[in-house]
């Protein structure tokens, strides 16, 4: 309680027993709130935390800018002749990669939060149990949106011209955010399962790096050896980046969208219950 000393010195106003008694008497017990209402309230909590610690937006602003610049100029000349050519292919992919990478911070924030006393209070409330976790993810959806917009703007500055226009771009980003929301349940599970922030980071990296790099984000999988193609072509990240690329290019890649949503549903169905099992037993 080292921070406590700052205000300890000043006099605390006395507790007013009368007004307290009046408050206790007048308190009517409201009806039980809906699952949506409590989830949104927890989402509001996540946004308040961003408001109080805006530095945590660093990973959704500086990091994505760096990703776009780095990979465009690193690979552009070699892979597509010029960075301007390459960014037409790369931007949807790097958008997917960066946002999916950012999802892993969900696990870290769950892990650091869960040990705090406030979690005991949340867990003793008569509310829809998953709403605490859904709240995190709703706050994260805001972060994913910020990251997507930032990257898109950088891409446009560098010469990215999506044929899908505004509608295609918005549809692509929307699909990416839906997928990321579902994918994040993996991290809520690890956040509750692992004992320290560091181990959460470690495990996240182990999952994220191969999953995002072994995909069609940077290059066409047909240039890869057959065994790797088998993995890459079936990776949810490949489906997602194909779908986003297609939508932003003005196509309607139905199969890829269906695959992406299918994977998203699977993540929620598997990792949602696992998360809640851990949450209830914590």
């Amino acid at each position: 309680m080292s921070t406590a000393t700052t205000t300890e010195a000043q006099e605390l106003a006395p507790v007013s027993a009368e007004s307290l008694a009046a408050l206790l008497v007048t308190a009517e017990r409201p009806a039980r709130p809906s699952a949506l209402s409590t989830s949104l309230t927890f989402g509001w909590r996540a946004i308040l935390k961003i408001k109080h610690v805006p530095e945590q937006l660093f990973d959704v602003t500086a990091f994505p800018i760096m990703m776009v610049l780095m990979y465009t100029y690193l690979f552009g000349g070699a892979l597509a002749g010029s960075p301007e050519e390459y960014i037409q292919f790369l931007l949807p992919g790097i958008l997917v990669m960066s946002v999916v990478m950012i999802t892993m911070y969900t696990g870290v924030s769950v892990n650091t939060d869960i040990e705090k006393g406030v979690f005991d209070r949340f867990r003793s409330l008569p509310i829809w149990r998953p709403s605490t976790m859904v709240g995190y993810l709703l706050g994260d959806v805001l972060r994913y949106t910020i990251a997507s917009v930032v990257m898109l703007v950088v891409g446009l500055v560098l010469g990215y011209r999506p044929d899908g226009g505004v509608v295609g771009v918005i549809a692509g980003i929307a699909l990416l955010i839906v997928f990321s929301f579902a994918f994040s349940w993996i991290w809520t599970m690890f956040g509750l399962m692992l004992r320290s922030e560091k181990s959460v980071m470690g495990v996240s990296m182990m999952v994220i790096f191969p999953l995002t790099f072994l995909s069609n984000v940077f290059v066409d999988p047909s240039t890869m050896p057959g065994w790797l193609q088998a993995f890459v072509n079936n990776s949810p990240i490949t489906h997602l980046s194909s779908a986003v690329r297609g939508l932003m290019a003005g196509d309607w890649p139905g199969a890829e969208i269906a695959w992406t949503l299918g994977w998203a549903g699977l993540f929620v169905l598997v990792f949602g219950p696992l998360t809640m099992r851990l949450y209830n037993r914590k």
Partner: protein
Amino acid sequence: MSQHTAGLAIETAGLVKTFGETRAVDGVDLAVPAGTVYGVLGPNGAGKTTTVKMLATLLRPDGGEAHVFGHDIVREADEVRSRVSLTGQYASVDEDLTGTENLVLLGRLLGHGRRTARDRSAQLLAAFGLTDAAGKQVKHYSGGMRRRIDIAASILSTPDLLFLDEPTTGLDPRSRNQVWDIVRAVVAQGTTVLLTTQYLDEADQLASRIAVIDHGKVIAEGTKGELKASVGAGSVHLRLRHAEQRPEAEQVLRLALDADVQPDPDPVALTARLSAAAQDTAAEQAARALGELARSGIVVDNFSLGQPSLDEVFLALTGHDTGTGPGPDTGTGTGTDRTDTDSDSTKDGVAA
């Protein structure tokens, strides 16, 4: 529910929780009458917090059963949750949010409308003397302020049962008194309070019944009067000017008080445990003891009369001390007046 007894807020039978090899709670039976303050007294690691966590549906018991207002804490956890409120040992509020934000957040989660949540938060903050700090992040609050916001958060919707887990650990004496006033105000409105504490005087001040718990077991239970009678009325602590007079002083005290007299490690100090069965009060007994000593020519430099400390309660009930050591900053030392203000003590004992 069949075994539920009317008028009881909490009823447990053989409640057990194990962590690996440790039986943190080892067959606890409690019967807490509704509308009262029930004290659970014990040292760090006795199983108090674990018991509270099970009753608040945060931990699943490994054995036995418990009912809160007739609802099984495992099968009807949701019913239980809608009747109880928990104030943990450490602040159960979000330290990154402001006081107002915390209360509005919880108000919304309890189902209050936006406006009601905001109004009620403002009223509670005012009643708790926190209006000036309402817009500050809780991490900048002092220990006393944290406790207040914590309790305020627990009574946003007046609960039927309020768990207060060591509400005054680490608070200075004045903040402690203010917390006590809050608890009294809450109980006066009909809420049942289950209070865990390491301090006998706190249980004495607030609780009508007390359970003493040690190593996961209830070792004594009863009204304050019953418990005190089993412990003794308190102790007289003396410091003599001349160490060589101590054996004589022991003799005199034993005769005068019919009390158990123990020499302290300090060669000039000794402690006499007063009997609760005596006709006169502890103060009268002490006065008589001083008179006798003066008559025998023993010079007393320093004298104090204390309530039985938790150590003494434990010694009387179990034959061993609390195991927390006699250090002055444990808050349960053998000293007569426990005015410890070490704010760090909240950090220990989380594992209780």
